[in-house]
């Protein structure tokens, strides 16, 4: 009678699961790199003098933000081969995560750029700072400070979203778990364990990002 739980079986697969964690982090990292490229490019095209580019960028942002990631990745999974791109599922997943994260990154980075006033450059010149100093200290650093929390939050979101990439069997933690589930039939134990692993990953990332923020972005005491 009653539920029977057996986490012992899951523990046998611990090394496999830990490799899955690395797969997840790798997927998120590659996706975020692509998202940043799209984000920076998108800020430029969104402010372009060419109307078609502006419209295309805004359409891209709105389409990505108002459709589920699951549908996006299915669409890409079937559409990319039509474009002659026969890619393995993991690469498809990186492209899907990159496009999804990119749409959000454009708006985040745009906010950072807009937070810098022209007056800051003028103030720097008035203080006799050199061009390089002005760019580094009163343009780049405040802009990065402004977007850092949103961008790192986005990275954690992407790490969690990457679990959906299991639906095209990309190599990451959830698909690793699905294989273990079909071997052991211990659905609850397997998914409960990897849920804790995801929690640990996002907690470590969050703490790590906070430490970096304190190191680099804290206002000096004087």
């Amino acid at each position: 009678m009653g539920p029977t739980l057996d986490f012992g079986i899951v523990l046998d697969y611990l090394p496999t699961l830990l490799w899955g964690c690395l797969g997840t982090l790798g997927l998120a990292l590659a996706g975020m790199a692509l998202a940043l490229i799209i984000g920076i490019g998108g800020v430029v095209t969104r402010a372009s003098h060419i109307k078609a580019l502006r419209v295309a960028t805004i359409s891209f942002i709105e389409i990505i933000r108002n459709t589920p990631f699951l549908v996006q990745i299915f669409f890409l999974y079937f559409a990319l081969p039509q474009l002659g791109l026969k890619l393995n599922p993991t690469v498809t997943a990186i492209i899907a995560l990159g496009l999804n994260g990119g749409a959000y990154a454009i708006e985040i980075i745009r906010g950072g750029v807009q937070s810098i006033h022209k007056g800051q450059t003028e103030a720097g010149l008035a203080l006799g700072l050199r061009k390089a100093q002005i760019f580094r200290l009163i343009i780049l650093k405040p802009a990065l400070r402004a977007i850092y929390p949103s961008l790192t939050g986005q990275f954690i979101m992407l790490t969690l979203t990457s679990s959906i990439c299991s639906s095209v069997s990309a190599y990451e933690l959830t698909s690793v778990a699905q294989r273990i589930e079909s071997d052991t039939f211990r659905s609850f134990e397997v998914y409960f364990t990897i849920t804790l692993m995801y929690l640990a990953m996002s907690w470590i990332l969050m703490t790590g990002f906070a430490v970096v923020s304190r190191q680099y972005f804290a206002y000096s005491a004087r």
Partner: protein
Amino acid sequence: MGHGFGAPEFLFLMTGLKWTVLLSIVAFVGGGVAGLLVAIARTSKNRLLSRLMAIYIGVFQGTPLLMQLFVVYYGLGLVGIHLPAWAAVAIAFTLSASAFLGEIWRGAIQAVPRGQTEAAMALSLPYSSRLRDVILPQALRIAQPATVGYLVQLIKGTSLAAIVGFVELARAGQIVSNQIFEPILVFAIVGSIYFLLCWPLSLYSARLEARHAIAR
């Protein structure tokens, strides 16, 4: 059969859409009621209660929605509760929504100026009335844009029910796509339906936010 996308396929997608909308409504209403309790508990003076709610919110924010769905779905079966698939996924989405809405409303409650509480105390209103008549009406107004924004997240999130086999819009799309062998067309249509559902809400949320920014 490969006879292309016709009226039967479209009607099947509409049945899926019906479940997507129902699931979203159930999770939003259920999650809204529970989320209000979470927000109140999170902002209460009781340290333990507040701490527990912070952990509750943190767990949902720090794990994939898909895992929350799996754990609830398989967990219920394990403790001997055998619910139909729609009920199991509805419970999972409701719990998740309660955490996210709870966190949004916690922020809003804390954004209500302290003077409001002080004034209500000076009028010797009891805690319940202070909350119900003074704090919450203002907090929920502040939270309007974020709440509508979350509804979009929720609608998109219900697509994950497809992975446990529940036939909502995304799963209906998969089924149709397997039948007529036109995945690109079908997922473009499915995506468009989600877009038509979510985009007006996103625009509404942005408009609310702009209005609040002016009011401030």
